[in-house]
């Protein structure tokens, strides 16, 4: 059978969701941000909540996320996405409000906002992209950088004596009574992407049920900041990040 006999509308099994715009993403080749954007767009599309969803974009590489997913968005100051999401959720309690934040944004400058929003149990979804680094500004150490990880500000690797311990912020978030669902996922293989999609779907369903805060960490790569190819970055993540940031659910109530 010839390829052109297979490539026909009636044989379509996978294509880009309409919720992803036609804009070319500014992300580096192989960046996990693109995978998570795709999954988010698919979930919002499949749940039929495009008109009811409001995203809050962060400062970081995903600052322009609003160019790529065709929903309503707000842009927050660095780290303040959970505070803005709180306000939006309280003004529009029937909307599906989510924040999309990097690890520098969420676990460094925005630590206060995320802890208190989760502790208050704001009825929102938090998507937390943990690539262990400040991607946008040139690969500096983040609170989440793991020990011995080379970054532009720790060229010989992160050391406890000088840089302190890496912060497992998701473990802290899971302790807070306001959170109903806390999980750590990834997006480096087809199976991981499918699991991530289930997790994001559950989180948005929780908003519909008004259950409180759903928090999804996505252990991610920043291949440019890590100075590895996209394929090698995924391998490095599996070998070095996963032992410290194991994949799985913390809480599902």
């Amino acid at each position, binding site marked *: 059978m010839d*390829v052109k006999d297979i490539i026909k509308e009636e044989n379509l*099994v*996978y*294509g880009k*969701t309409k919720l*992803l715009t036609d804009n070319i*993403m500014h992300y580096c080749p192989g960046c996990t941000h693109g*995978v998570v954007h795709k999954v988010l767009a698919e979930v919002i599309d499949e749940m039929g909540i495009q008109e009811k969803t409001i995203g809050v974009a962060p400062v970081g590489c995903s600052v322009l996320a609003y160019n790529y997913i065709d929903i309503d968005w707000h842009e927050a100051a660095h780290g303040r996405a959970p505070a803005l999401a709180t306000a939006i959720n309280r003004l529009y309690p029937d909307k599906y409000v989510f924040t999309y934040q990097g690890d520098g944004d969420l676990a460094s400058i925005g630590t206060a906002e995320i802890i208190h929003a989760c502790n208050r149990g704001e009825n929102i979804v938090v998507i937390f992209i943990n690539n262990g680094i400040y991607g946008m500004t040139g690969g500096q150490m983040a609170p989440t950088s793991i020990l011995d990880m080379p970054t532009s500000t720790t060229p010989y690797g992160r050391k406890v004596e000088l840089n302190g311990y890496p912060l497992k912020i998701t473990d802290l978030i899971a302790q807070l009574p306001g959170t109903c669902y806390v999980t750590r996922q990834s997006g480096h293989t087809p199976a991981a992407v499918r699991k991530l999609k289930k997790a994001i779907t559950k989180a948005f369903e929780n908003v519909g049920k008004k259950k409180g805060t759903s928090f999804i960490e996505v252990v991610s790569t920043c291949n440019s900041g890590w100075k590895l190819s996209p*394929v090698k970055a995924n391998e490095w993540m599996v070998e070095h990040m996963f032992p410290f940031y194991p994949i799985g659910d913390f809480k599902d109530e």
Partner: protein
Amino acid sequence: MAKVRGAIVVDVEKCKGCGLCVVACPSKVIDLAKEVNGKGYNYAYMANPDACIGCANCAIVCPDTVITVYKVNTEANV
């Protein structure tokens, strides 16, 4: 046993040549072209089209969502 055949279409100008689809494919269908697209990336293409089973693994992991997947059950056509 039903025989499944698949095929992919890559939006060549939007592909960034990251290679994540190449390693995600269970049938070793995809390779990066020697030629480059308008942005200078070695884009993905079906180097071994007969082996494609239409599983969509490549499209699912593509960060730029530039792969479309088609699948047929060839037995139905015999």
